[in-house]
């Protein structure tokens, strides 16, 4: 009697174990399938403009005129690629010194005030939706540039300014984590040798944490590269390479946002937009691998 009861319990135990394993494995399988199908679908759609519609890769990556409705249609995406790189790099350049100084302030200079004022400020910035950034950019930054510089105010610098504030929280929080993780012996050794705080920071702390700081910069740039609506609102959306920072231009994301709704699925005009999405996807992979490479260097 007792034995059959026991074996039933053991059975129940095993069944329970399997339920858990199967349920959670299903979730993870779904996640993996989703990402592979995402890459597969975007890649087949994006490559079809080369294989089915016969657009040449050289024209796509090197051509400077984008006239999808023209006769003959032209699909030079270089202005968009240039626009994306220019805005995201400039945004990272503006944001990097701000965020690293912010992190130094929070960890090394005034930790108490940093925790009370700066930390909440940065958490708040992280929570503001991107369309709101775009709206503020359009109603504050663009008119400001229009008043002091020649041109409409729309363009690369307006886009980079908006993006630099958007990516500030990402970069600051990663820099803060890196600085906090630094063993205090290094700093104490430097102070014991009679170095001032700035000498310690610039010759010991920053060089040691540099790979981790760079990780933050690259992640911020990746986010800026993929951001769509906030950039689209302030960049002006003209399909050519600009002569100045204040001339209307476009990015990969802005042209996808604007044109995807106006083209019919399966046409060449639509397929080339998927090719642009594929470029975005491939750039994401590049950013992820750069980040992984930097992280490996940070551990050593």
């Amino acid at each position, binding site marked *: 009697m007792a034995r059959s009861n026991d074996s039933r319990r053991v059975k129940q135990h095993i069944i329970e174990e399997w339920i858990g394993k199967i349920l959670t494995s*299903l979730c993870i399988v779904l996640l993996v399938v989703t990402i592979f199908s*995402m890459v597969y679908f975007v890649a087949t759609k994006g490559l079809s403009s080369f294989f089915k519609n016969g657009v040449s890769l050289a024209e796509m990556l090197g051509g400077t005129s984008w006239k999808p409705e023209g006769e003959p249609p032209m699909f030079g995406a270089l202005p968009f690629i240039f626009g994306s790189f220019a805005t995201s790099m400039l945004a990272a350049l503006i944001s990097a010194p701000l965020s690293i100084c912010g992190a130094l302030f929070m960890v090394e200079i005034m930790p108490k005030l940093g925790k009370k004022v700066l930390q909440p400020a940065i958490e*708040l910035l992280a929570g503001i939706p991107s369309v709101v950034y775009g709206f*503020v950019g359009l109603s504050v930054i663009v008119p400001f540039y229009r008043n002091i510089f020649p041109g409409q105010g729309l363009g690369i610098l307006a886009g980079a300014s908006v993006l630099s504030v958007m990516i500030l929280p990402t970069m600051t929080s990663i820099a803060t984590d890196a600085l906090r993780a630094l063993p205090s012996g290094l700093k104490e050794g430097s102070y014991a040798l009679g170095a001032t705080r700035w000498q310690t920071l610039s010759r010991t702390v920053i060089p040691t944490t540099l790979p981790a700081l760079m990780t933050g910069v690259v992640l911020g740039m990746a986010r800026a590269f993929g951001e769509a609506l906030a950039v689209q609102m302030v960049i002006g959306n003209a399909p050519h390479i600009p002569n100045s920072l204040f001339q209307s231009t476009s990015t990969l994301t802005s042209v996808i946002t604007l044109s995807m709704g106006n083209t019919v699925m399966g046409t060449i005009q639509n397929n080339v937009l998927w090719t642009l999405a594929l470029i975005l996807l491939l750039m994401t992979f590049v950013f992820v691998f750069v980040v992984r490479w930097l992280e490996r260097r940070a551990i050593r």
Partner: protein
Amino acid sequence: MSAKTVDKIATGVIILFAGIIVLIMVGLLGFILVRGLGHISFDFLTSPPETIREGGGIGPQLFNSLFLLVLTLIITVPLGLGAGIYMSQYAKPGRVTDSIRLIVEVLSSFPSIVVGLFGLLVFVNTFGFGFSLFSGALALTVFNLPLMVRITEQGLASVPLAQKEASLALGLSKWKTIRSVMLPIALPVILTGTILAAGRVFGEAAALLFTAGMSSPRLDFTDWNPFSPMSPLNPFRPAETLAVHIWKVNSEGLAPDAPEIAAGASAVLILTVLLFNLLARFVGRQLQKKFTASR
């Protein structure tokens, strides 16, 4: 220049830059609230938008955002919990687990517009859900799943090992241990993270442009049958959310008071996100108090 002078100058510059960050935050928040709060009224929050005349509201958009958030959480939370539990408890260290981790990392850094395009291709066209709340919720799930997985993993990692081992030693199965011992202890971390993720969902627009659509049918707020096309509860109707509405009003708004509407809607959006943040802190602290003896 002596080392001390350089040190003073450098410290000054760092403090200055930190001050600039705080100023940006204050200026941004102040601008949105000053411009927007004046426009918020009961009428603005409940009436439907106008295309050409002024005086339009954001009633349907606000409802759509909240409803979409609920739908998204219903799908995301179980999936994210399951995947997170697998990653932290069942996955054996090795090459497979490492590559799954890489995949989750890649998924979390995909641009949201690409997630939206994927949703357009798969949920809207291939599965035939059309421009609908349901397609939008699925796209947001894809977008949010990696975050949910990370939150779950963090939550489970915060459980003391002794508690888990005690439960296993009592003869409970691993699944039972996870469900009845570990998850309750991990709840404060998981819940706080989920509420913060909800704030992110609430403000997302790029992934929704081509999945939930950019228009809203005329809603009949007296019809609560989820299957009728005019009902607000029907998950298979197109729905423009608040964030999408802000974008649309700014880029192609024809109403004469478009800037005011955008400002008002932005203020509503910001206040909601702020509310989520405060709620997350409050809930986290309350649960912490309840489950541990600490104060």
